[in-house]
């Protein structure tokens, strides 16, 4: 007998998405992840705008990772207009981005993932029984809010990063204050990584391709070429030759391919490709964990995010130590036309912004988000994992599928929200 599994609102992920599964005679015939979030047409609404207003508009693509959309937009626009800002400005922008990655990981791990493994319906229910876990993780979240507020002017949709520079510069005293709170948070981040390493993840692995930025000398979020776990690489301006997108019927998100192949981006991809570049503390931590990375298990993305947070705290301290209180003027554009492409690492992986500017106006825009790149790989994982769990009860199947989806940390607002089960 054939049946359809239809999870039409998946809870505890960012945005509105649904999962459609068709099973016939015990065989999985079709798996489709559908994004049901209303279309917001970002690539359309930036058209005809002055390029300077683009970063503040694209920041609104996503409330979980507004900072990276804003700063990737900035980088692309500056490239198009021939503006080169100082390394000092880039350091400040990087602090904002890294702090926002810490925040995004902490929210995902604490609010979405942990309740599944501790058997709670939500973080609210968990807070009553396990208040310490929630308290500690909230510490990390608040730390990140403070960094974005101090350097960026506001926790979400930061204000200071502008085309040509920064509208406000932090003082040495402000930076020192942030460093001391980061020093205190390191222990909590290590505790969190050990906690996520101690969880029992489903025993599932599938051969996969990873893509991440790589520059050979650092653990990059804002620079470098795109490199695959199989050793291929391409430069930023060549992305269209390597990455293609296809539309999905009944879904407002598109699907991406790397040379016709599905792939995975995010913390696990970054750690797989750049693990020798993480901080000393993070390296020592990673070597002591019971789980190993690289791994072909999507669940290791949870562990990778937690390990990354330790590295990110160290990196933020390193960058904040360079803050000396200097101020710089906003740089004026050299030209009012050109094309600018920027590829960065958002919390959830590789992010591409591409703009063409002509006669002071944005003429064309293209944005490829990490979740769009991960959707295909996620569907393939669900397809491969389903036969192993089909004998289970309906509620259990749903939980198992949600665990897998949440491991990917999908960001649906970015890709254009989640799960109800209907048996046919």
């Amino acid at each position, binding site marked *: 007998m054939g049946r359809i599994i239809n999870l039409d*609102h998946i*809870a*505890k992920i*960012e*945005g*509105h998405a649904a999962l459609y599964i068709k099973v016939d005679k015990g065989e999985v015939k079709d798996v489709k992840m559908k994004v049901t*979030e*209303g*279309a*917001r*047409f*970002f*690539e*359309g*609404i930036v*058209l*005809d*705008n*002055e390029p300077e*207003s683009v970063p*503040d*508009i694209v920041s*609104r*693509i*996503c*409330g*979980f990772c*507004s900072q990276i959309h804003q700063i990737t937009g900035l980088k692309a626009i500056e490239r198009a207009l021939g503006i080169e800002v100082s390394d000092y400005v880039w350091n400040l922008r990087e602090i904002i981005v890294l702090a926002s990655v810490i925040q995004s990981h902490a*929210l995902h791990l604490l*609010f979405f993932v942990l*309740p599944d493994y501790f058997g709670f*319906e*939500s*973080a*609210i229910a968990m*807070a009553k029984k396990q208040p310490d876990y*929630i308290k500690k993780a*909230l510490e990390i*979240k608040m730390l990140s*809010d403070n960094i974005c507020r101090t350097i*960026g*002017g*506001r*926790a*979400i*949709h930061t*204000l*200071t990063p*502008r085309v040509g520079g*920064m*509208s*406000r510069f932090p003082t040495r005293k402000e930076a020192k204050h942030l460093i001391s709170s980061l020093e205190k948070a390191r222990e909590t981040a290590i505790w969190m990584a050990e906690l996520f390493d101690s969880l029992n993840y489903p025993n599932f692995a599938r051969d996969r391709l990873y893509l991440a930025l790589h520059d050979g000398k650092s653990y990059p979020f804002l620079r470098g070429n795109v490199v695959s776990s199989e050793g291929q690489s391409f430069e930023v301006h060549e992305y269209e030759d390597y990455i293609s997108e296809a*539309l999905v019927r009944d879904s*407002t998100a598109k699907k991406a391919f790397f040379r016709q192949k599905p792939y995975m981006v995010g913390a696990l991809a970054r750690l797989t490709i750049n693990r020798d570049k993480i901080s000393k503390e993070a390296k020592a931590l990673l070597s002591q964990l019971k789980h190993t990375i690289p791994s072909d298990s999507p669940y290791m993305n949870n562990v990778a995010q937690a390990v990354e947070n330790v590295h990110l705290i160290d990196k933020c301290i390193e960058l904040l130590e360079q803050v000396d209180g200097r101020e710089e003027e906003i740089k004026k554009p050299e030209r009012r036309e050109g094309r600018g492409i920027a590829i960065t690492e958002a919390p959830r992986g590789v992010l591409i912004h591409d703009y063409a500017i002509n006669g002071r106006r944005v003429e*064309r*825009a293209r944005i490829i988000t990490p979740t769009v790149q991960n959707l295909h790989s996620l569907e393939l994982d669900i397809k491969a994992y389903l036969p192993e769990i089909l004998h289970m009860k309906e509620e259990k199947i749903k939980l198992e599928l*949600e665990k897998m989806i949440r491991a990917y940390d999908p960001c649906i*607002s970015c890709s254009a*929200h*989640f799960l109800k089960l209907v048996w046919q």
Partner: protein
Amino acid sequence: MKRLKLAVFSLTSCDGCQVVLLQAFKQLLQLERYIEISHFPLLKDKNKRGPFDISIVEGSVVNKRDIKKIKQIRKKSKILIALGTCATHGGVQAVKNFMPQDKVVHAVYPPGFIKDATEVSGIGRHVKVDYEIWGCPPVAEDIVKLLKKLMVGQKPKNINEEPVCVECRALGHECLLEKGILCLGPITHKGCNAICISAGRGCYGCRGFLNEGNVKQLLKKLTEMGYSIGQIEDILSVYMSNSKKVKRVIEYGENY
């Protein structure tokens, strides 16, 4: 005392308003004796269907499904709160209403792919809204303050019907318009504590258009400062395209 049932809904948005609710997670948990979070899909697996005492809605209406959803939410909610500029005014995506539709849509999808898109608006266009919390993003304390008042049965009036300038002056900032920098402070709802001006830049109107705001006077000032009508339209259209006064400026330009 019976606990009030609280629901959080999301229409089409960046979900940033819900991230702001997470910023207030500790305070929300402290209200647990009085308020039960019974529907919040971003955080919960088991979500009740209602009815609810208080519903917080973030996100704007962009399609027929959103219209249907907001009407259903209104029916099962005693008090309806619009949270954030998408829900109060339509948000950044509302600028689409004033652009050639084909151009905007086809920049992203092929013809015929998106079938149910409607005009982008705040929720107030389709249902009665009891309270508005402004901002993109809104301020977490505003949400907690309002909930505390509603909890004890107060019916607060909006105290933010004043421009950002009021807060800006109290902070002692030099007026950016006097310095020749474009700033929408005079026509934008206060309540952010002049956050942009403190960050070294002009206000870009994220809390939405203030009904008492004098657009005509600001327009005159900005043109005297040397900004072209195109530049002014650009910044006005990001957050204020759904205001009738601002719409006229965008449509008629210098002849306004």
